[in-house]
């Protein structure tokens, strides 16, 4: 028997995994709610790809991958916000930039002596390897992200739904849009620590989309989204511990199962 819940929590790395994933899940789901509301989920995807280059590049120079990721994702998020509408309909340009970012990540990785483990943990996350220092960084980043999101949430909700009306009412919609993408960048960098570059949607899009199927209220929707994300992350880690599957796989599986389950249930009633 590998484990009762108490056995599982006897390990320091498991305690840190639960703490880190819980904190990040709340951030990802709250930011992700607005990402889904604004129809900007592609931005989360794009920023994670750009972050891959930042994380691998930073590690190459002996810097923290989380730090490198933050610099790259925030720079990219702010640029996307400033370019704004000029980016819409530029699928080809965006696609080329994204693949270039991934390619640069691969290029940086080629200089590593032991690149495959490092690459896998950035691409698919490694929540069981979260260090004390990383956990501390995540707590601070999560606090900053949630506080800033709360601060901009009213004009953000307004300008997400009715940009022209918001502009007429005096909302600085461009500033709000740029600030929001900077927060998406922060949330992506945190999510990557848990589920990796390629699976950020599991935390940032799955829970908010599921929550929006379950309630059409704004604040309850955000809270439900956060609750679902935490439940999926924790259940995923516990499942992975017991069946010895990759943790990110289990979290993503539960995120997808929750969304599809609710969708099918709604269709059938």
């Amino acid at each position, binding site marked *: 028997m590998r484990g009762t819940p108490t056995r599982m929590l006897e390990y320091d790395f498991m305690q840190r995994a639960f703490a880190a994933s819980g904190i990040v899940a709340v951030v990802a789901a709250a930011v992700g709610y607005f990402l889904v*509301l604004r*129809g900007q989920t592609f931005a989360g995807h794009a920023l994670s790809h750009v972050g891959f280059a930042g994380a691998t590049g930073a590690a190459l120079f002996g810097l923290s991958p989380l730090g490198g990721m933050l610099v790259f994702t925030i720079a990219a998020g702010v640029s996307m916000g400033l370019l704004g509408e000029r980016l819409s309909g530029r699928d080809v340009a965006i696609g080329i930039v994204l693949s270039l970012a991934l390619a640069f990540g691969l290029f940086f990785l080629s200089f590593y002596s032991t690149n495959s483990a490092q690459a896998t943990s950035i691409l698919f996350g490694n929540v069981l390897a979260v260090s004390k220092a990383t956990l501390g960084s995540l707590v601070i980043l999560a606090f900053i992200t949630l506080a800033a999101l*709360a*601060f*901009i*949430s*009213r*004009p953000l*909700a*307004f*300008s997400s*739904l*009715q*940009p*022209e*009306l*918001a*502009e*007429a*009412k*005096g*909302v600085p919609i461009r500033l709000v849009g740029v600030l929001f993408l900077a927060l998406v960048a922060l949330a992506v960098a945190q999510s990557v620590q848990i589920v990796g570059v390629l699976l950020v949607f599991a935390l940032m899009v799955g829970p908010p989309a599921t929550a*929006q*199927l379950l309630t*059409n*209220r*704004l*604040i309850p*929707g955000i809270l439900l989204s956060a609750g679902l994300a935490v439940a999926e992350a924790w259940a995923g880690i516990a499942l992975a511990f017991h069946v010895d599957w990759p943790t990110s796989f289990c979290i993503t599986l539960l995120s997808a199962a929750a969304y599809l389950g609710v969708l099918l249930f709604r269709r059938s009633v």
Partner: protein
Amino acid sequence: MNALELDRVSLSRGEKTILSDVTLAVGEGEFVGVLGANGAGKTTLMKAVLGLLPLDKGDIRVFGKPVSRGNAAIGYMPQTRSLPPELRLSGRDFLATAIRGDRWGVPLPGKDDRREIDRCLDAVGAQHLASHSLGDMSGGERQRLMIAQALIGSPRLLLLDEPLISLDPHQQGIVVHLVRDLSRSLGLTVLFSAHELNQLLGAVDRVLYLGHGHAALGKVDEVINPDTLSRLYDAPIEVVRAGGHIFVMSGGQIVERDRHEGHTH
């Protein structure tokens, strides 16, 4: 006091002159239909009244005050429908986002805010839509909620930009009558842009017709006549009346038909 005054206003959008030395006044409580060819500047005029566009010359006053962005006296319903079709948000929460939407902070509606939302829902007869998701509503129901949203904060001037677009004729009639009743019961001044005159006949007090930098404001018969319209269109225009409808013709063709798909101007 007049609700809206344009004093020798010149206004352009890019290279195109929208208004050239236009002076006019709209009285308080008037329901004015804003008409004109696509690109004549109906949206541009509204944006200028909202203080979103600089004027080349002249000035615009709203209830005697110069235009300013965020003027609480103006309610606005933009033409662009940017709402995602599948939006899973209740009518009530949709309205709530407009309450103090320009202030930082968390959008938690208080008691007064909830009362204001109820007042606006009641005003447009949309209380039954409060708990429905926008994604499940018909075009007419969404339009009704957007009009309710424009009423938040008790504005005295309503700018409604193409509220009839993408509605069937029956829904169009309902929206026109709703706005006319609101204008009368709340004493609201309304500028209501549309690309078809006939939907507004019998409901509007006056029409404002824009074209080629000129503007004509008056009763339907004063504006919709060959002389005035030929000047606005800069081309010979015929006006044909049949069965209670008015058709504006140019060279044997009806102008203002099916040329309005999804443009902003």
